[in-house]
């Protein structure tokens, strides 16, 4: 726990330092873009309160993103949505619904050769709900998570082609979630009961939420339009009495309007 607090404190200081810097380069005209994406995802989930087996399945994720990029900083707001159907090896079905809203702000900290390194933070809001229609509502589980992630992006540009790699890890999160043996139905009486029984702050090492994003951005095809290809991998692990972890991988392509 002390180690986690030290890490958070260190990154907070780094962020404050970065945000305090202003150079003439930063005042260069930024670019704005809006992207609409569609892809293919694979989700694997293990929640030992329900099964020692892994539930997995594919889905079609949708994404909508706004990005503001300048020489010195990157900002984005991204919405991701998917509702995959997962199956255990014995075909027990789990309908999942995942929605992520991310706001990120990162500042350039280093340039070398054709690479730039950005460091910053992300605010993440996530809703994730799971139902098992074959067995009834007692197995319904859900999470509403609001967290602060530490994030860094490395970009590599060559002949107008750009590759981005982003790594994010949750620093602190305020979660409303059904714990072992609780279920969404237990809270039908009132929202205050949900807050009373299932709300708390979580951080490393009890709660782990990390993601890797890789993007390939080719040169502009026209004055405003381009496409991009992204890979996104996310792993979340909750430390409760019985293990719960979710691993998601997705590849998506987006049409981007730049202005």
């Amino acid at each position, binding site marked *: 726990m002390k180690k986690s607090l030290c890490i958070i404190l260190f990154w907070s200081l780094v962020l404050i330092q970065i945000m305090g810097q202003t150079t003439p380069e930063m005042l260069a005209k930024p670019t704005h873009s809006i992207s609409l994406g569609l892809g293919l995802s694979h989700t*694997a*989930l*293990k929640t030992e*309160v*329900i*099964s*020692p*087996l*892994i539930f*997995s399945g594919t889905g079609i994720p949708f994404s909508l993103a706004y990005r503001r990029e300048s020489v010195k900083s990157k900002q984005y707001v991204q919405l991701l949505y998917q509702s995959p159907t997962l199956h*255990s*090896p*014995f*075909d*027990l079905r789990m309908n999942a619904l995942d929605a992520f809203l991310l706001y990120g702000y990162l500042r350039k900290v280093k340039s070398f*050769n054709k*690479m730039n390194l950005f460091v910053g933070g992300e605010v993440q809001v996530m809703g994730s709900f799971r139902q*098992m229609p074959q*067995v*009834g509502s*007692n*197995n319904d589980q859900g999470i509403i998570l609001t967290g602060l992630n530490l994030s860094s992006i*490395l970009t590599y540009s060559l002949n107008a082609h750009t590759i981005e*790699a982003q*790594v994010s890890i949750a620093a602190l999160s305020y979660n409303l979630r059904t*714990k*072992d*043996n*609780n*279920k969404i*139905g*237990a809270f*039908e*009486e009132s929202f205050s*009961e949900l807050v*009373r*029984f299932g709300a708390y702050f979580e951080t490393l090492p009890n709660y782990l939420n990390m993601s*890797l994003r*890789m993007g390939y951005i080719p040169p502009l095809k026209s004055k405003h339009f381009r496409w991009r290809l992204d890979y996104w*991998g996310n*792993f979340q*692990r909750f430390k409760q*009495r*019985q*293990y719960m*972890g979710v*691993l998601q*991988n997705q590849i998506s392509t987006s049409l981007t309007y730049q202005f």
Partner: protein
Amino acid sequence: MKKILYVISTTLFFNSCTKAFLGDEPENNPETTFESFYKQINENYSGKDVRPISWDSLYKVYRPKVTAQTTKSQLTDIFKNMIVLYEDLHLNFKIGNEFYSPSLERITANGIPDYLGETALEKVLGKKPKSYKDLFYYEKTSNNVGYVNIKTFENRFSQADYAFFDNILEELKDTKALIIDIRRNDGGNENYAVKIAGRFATTEQVYKYTRVKTGISKTDYSDFNSFTLKPNGVWQITKPIVLLTGRYTYSTAINFTMMMRTLPNVTTLGNNTGDGVVGFTTRELPNGWLLRCPSGLAYLPDKTVVEGSGGLKPKIVTTISEEQKKNGQDAILEKALDLLK
């Protein structure tokens, strides 16, 4: 550059390895299935915390009987023998479409207990009761007492079907008293139960508390969560009511009993309800079998635990003797009508 490529390729590698992140899955064999069955009940089953049966002792007796050669049928019998001792109607398991509830099998070995069916009702009521979709049976006796049999609270009937209860109350509005019969009601959706019971409530009343199991220890439970019965409908029924219960009255039907017990004009009559009120979570075992086990306890408004109590005892205990059963004589309903003379 090499370092960066190394970091990226390593991260990609980890993302592609589901088991590296989520851990191994147990093998599908009788021994791992037994161990998982033991572990799930040991860590999550609330009923063992309020019943004097040692789960660890059962493990010691039955574990040596399970080997790699144990057949499906043998393992089924072992599981049944282990859980039947808890007499919990909500502790059971499913293999494919086959449902194994040893406690329920025990009480229904000779048919639904404390209930003789619609023919016996007809004999006492003097005429065949009207029915609505095998959900409600209702009639007015010659003595001007209304009778309503609620056969279930299950989701296979719609909200509109349950709303038909209002029509029945309109039809029985002029009766001097009501008998509500839930002796063969095996529960369902508590929301339907609370709406029906709300027709009888004139004020808001806490009808139960629940606590959720939060750890392995007998004392690891959440705080009390209260559930309230609220008046429902355009007018309330305040006439004398007799609620009939029996050993097949369980699950949400026990919740309904708890709701009705808060009302001053309600008398409970019949036999103890079944044992098993808090809903179960379905848990998959390594061979695909589904264990259904509750992980919470229900309490009466005075915070007396309901699970493991042998069912809720009615105010007036009446049973049907073997002789009466043979003659098709519904002695419980007869007693209720006597009471409302």
